[in-house]
Structures are given as C-alpha cells and as structure tokens.
C-alpha cells in the first residue's frame, strides 16, 4: 500500500465514521460544536458564576483553553482504544496498526476544524479581530497535532497489550485538564517558579498558553520551546511508528486473544 493509498484509507474511514455518528444522533453534525460548547458552559458556570474567578473576559480565556484541550484529550482517549476496538478487521487483514488510531485522529481533526472556526468567530465578535498574529496559529496547531498523534500511538499500543490502560489514560486526561491551565492561567500562579515549571515541563500547558498568547494578546509563542516540543513529539512518533511496524503481528495477537 502506497502512502497516498494509506492516507486515503485513513481519510475514508474517518469520513465514514463521522457520517455514521451524525446519522445516529438527532442533532447530527450540530454536536461537533454543541458538545465542546456545553463543556465550556459547565466550566463557565462553575468557575465564573459560582467561584467568581475575577478575571476579565474569563469566557474568552476559558474557550481558548477548553476548546483546544478537548481536541487533545478526546483524540488521545478515543484513539487509544482504536486497535483493540477493531479486532474484527485486524483478524482478517494484515494491515499496519497505525491505521486505526490515525483514522480516529483524522475524525477529530475534521470536528476540530469546525470548533476552531467557531472559536475564531466568537473571539472576533468579542473584540479580538483577526490579524497577522493569527498566522502563528499554524505552527502551534501543527505541533499540537504531532503531540496528539504521538501520544495516541503510545496509548493505542498500551491498551492493545493490556486493556486496563484505557482506564489509566482516561484518568490521565482528567489529570492533564487540571494541570494544564485550562481554567487557570499558568502565568499568574502565585509562585513564579511553579509557573515556570508548569510551562517548561507540561507541553500541553505550553501549547494552551501559546494559543491564548496569539488569540488574546496577538503575541508570538516562544519559538524555541515550540520547536523543542515539535522535535520531541516527532521523535516519539518515529519510535512508535517503528515499534508498531515491527510488532504488527504481536499487536494483532494481543487484539485477538
């Protein structure tokens, strides 16, 4: 199978699953944006209306954090279960196992495109007009995507080998939501050293902060840090692709047994 055929297959599976998912639900494709908006609403009620965060434009701040975090958490969570979930196909065809998590990620990419459009439109209406700074979003999104693919491949292998990992991964996503500055600002933590550590050692916190810097302050991200995360994610991805190619039959045996 050529790379082009492989990518077409990934894309075909993703589009078929999106169509089937929309057909299953009464509101169909509306759920692409409704679900993340409902998440934002829940956080807004808790942190702004009940706990009174005291932050100016908390809604814009929250949307930048939550809508980008959901892309990562949902994609990794669902892709992690994808090899185990496709054991029927795996038992029939010797196919590279990266296909299944990548199809789930592709599905998430289509949904996220709609979510990003919604976010940009919302920010524009709220007084953050489009500008040249929005071009900074492109490298940030690319690195975010690389992180998603690398982490999903790790998760998919772990869950395929030991199913219990799916529980740990779901828990890890909740943990990441709390430590990545989704509803608090890493830059305004009381202890400057802690803030520095969070941004330095939690790539997701850095990425979420980078989105906010671009969208709310029209500021460029820290390019060196972004490049470091890109290289780290690319290396992890390369290692995972090699592992998954070499252990394709082992993964099939684990999925089937």
């Amino acid at each position, binding site marked *: 199978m050529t790379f082009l*055929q492989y990518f077409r297959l990934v894309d*075909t599976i993703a589009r*078929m699953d999106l169509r089937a998912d929309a057909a299953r639900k009464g509101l169909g494709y509306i759920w692409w944006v409704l679900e993340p908006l409902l998440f934002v609403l829940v956080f807004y009620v808790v942190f702004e209306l009940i706990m009174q965060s005291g932050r100016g434009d908390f809604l814009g701040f929250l949307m930048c954090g939550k809508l980008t975090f959901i892309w990562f958490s949902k994609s990794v969570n669902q892709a992690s279960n994808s090899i185990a979930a496709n054991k029927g196909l795996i038992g029939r*065809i*010797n196919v590279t196992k990266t296909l299944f998590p990548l199809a789930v990620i592709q599905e998430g990419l289509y949904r996220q495109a709609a979510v990003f459009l919604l976010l940009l439109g919302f920010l524009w209406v709220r007084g953050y007009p489009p500008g040249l700074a929005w071009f900074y979003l492109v490298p940030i999104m690319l690195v975010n995507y690389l992180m998603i693919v690398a982490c999903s491949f790790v998760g998919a292998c772990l869950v395929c080998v030991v199913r219990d990992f799916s529980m740990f991964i779901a828990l890890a996503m909740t943990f990441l939501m709390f430590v990545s500055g989704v509803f608090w600002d890493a830059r305004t933590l009381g202890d400057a050293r802690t803030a520095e550590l969070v941004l330095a050692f939690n790539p997701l916190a850095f990425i979420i902060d980078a989105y906010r810097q671009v969208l709310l302050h029209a500021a460029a991200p820290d390019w060196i840090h972004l490049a470091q995360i890109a290289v780290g994610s690319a290396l992890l991805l390369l290692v995972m692709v090699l592992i998954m190619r070499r252990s394709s*039959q082992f993964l099939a*045996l684990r999925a089937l*047994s």
Partner: protein
Amino acid sequence: MAAGGREIMLQLEDVSLSYPSRRKSFDHGAHHVLDRVSLQVFEGETLGIIGRNGVGKSTTLRLMAGILAPTSGTVWQRPGKSASLLTIGLGFRPDLSGRDNATLAAMLQGATARQARGFLEEIKEFSELGDSFEEPVKTYSSGMLARLGFTTALKTHVDILLIDEVLSVGDALFREKAEAAMKSRISGDQTVVFVSHMEGQVREVCDRAICLYEGAVLAEGDPAAVLDAYREIR
C-alpha cells in the same frame, strides 16, 4: 522451491503458536493453538483444511496471511505473491452501511477508492441486499451479513486465496449461488487454501486435504483418505 513439478507458493515449517492466557487450565498460563505444524501449498492447487472447532484452522490461515506471526518455526511465502484471507461475519463496522463496509473492505485489500466504487454495484446486485445496502449493517440478519461478506470477498483478486468457512452460512438459495461462484473462481489457476466443516465441499473442490487435530497435522494427502481420518476423531 518446487515439488512434483509444481512451485511451492507457501510453506509452514515446524510452526507453533501459543498465547498467554489467564485460565489456569492452560500450560503455565499459555494456550497452545498450534504445535509444530508443517505444510506446503503448491501453485494452482486447492488445499482443504479440516478439523473440529478450536483446532487451529483459522489460526493457520491467519499465519498464512501474515496477520499473525508464529511463536516458533517459519512461514515462507513466495516473494512477490500476495495472500489474502477471506472470512465473513467478522470485521464489519456495525454503524456503517453495507456500501461503506464493502468500500472499506476493498480498500483494505489494496483497491483504490475509485476501484472500490467500481465494485459496489456488482456487490449490491450479487448480494441481493437491495435498499438494505444503504442501511447500517447492525440492522442486518445473519443471512444478510453472510451475503454481504461473501460477495465482498469474492471480488478480491490475489495470488493465494485463503478461504475461511465462507460457504457455511446464509440461506440455501444464496449458498447454492455462492458455491457456484466460488467453484468457478477456484477451478482455474488460482491457488486456494480452503477451511471448511463440510465434508462434501472439501471432497468436491479440494485437490489435497489436511486434517488438524489438537493443534497438529493428523493426516495429509488425498481428500477422501483425509476425510476418513477426520471421521475417526470427530
């Protein structure tokens, strides 16, 4: 490699396969599916594999298709030749329509999206699914699933065809039509490995047969003799 003037297409040599199991009844937590199985598949022949349920027939096909790797021993396939496993009832994505599943199956076998679309009307017609072809396969009866699975499998063109019980299910009328289509497919130069429970099918379509018993080869050779051996252990 050649034997009796015919080239070997595929060979299993001392192949064993086991996997870890939590059930304590298995040997030190390992379930041994195959135990030092050796066999050869020659060009253009139809080899039948027969044996009771759970004896390792499907696993043997999965090893031949490269889906699984043996725990020990070697699986050799003639370079440049493709082998494909045709099964039914498994592998469908329940929320997708029959059309989408058929497209996906064809693309997974290496067809381009355009080629896959080209097969669809033929598949729809042969499978006699009518409007149900556009419905999610989770709404299908087992007979409809069998028809879709068989028809999709029939459209695959590979050097070595590995067939797992595809003729054992479905209603009587469709089975007759499917048997005829399958016979015309395997009567030519196609190399086929055929797994079946049905003695009549093995006797009728196979040039050679192998009987598996407790993960090992019990008998090999002329289908009639192998079926006699099978009857004794059944």
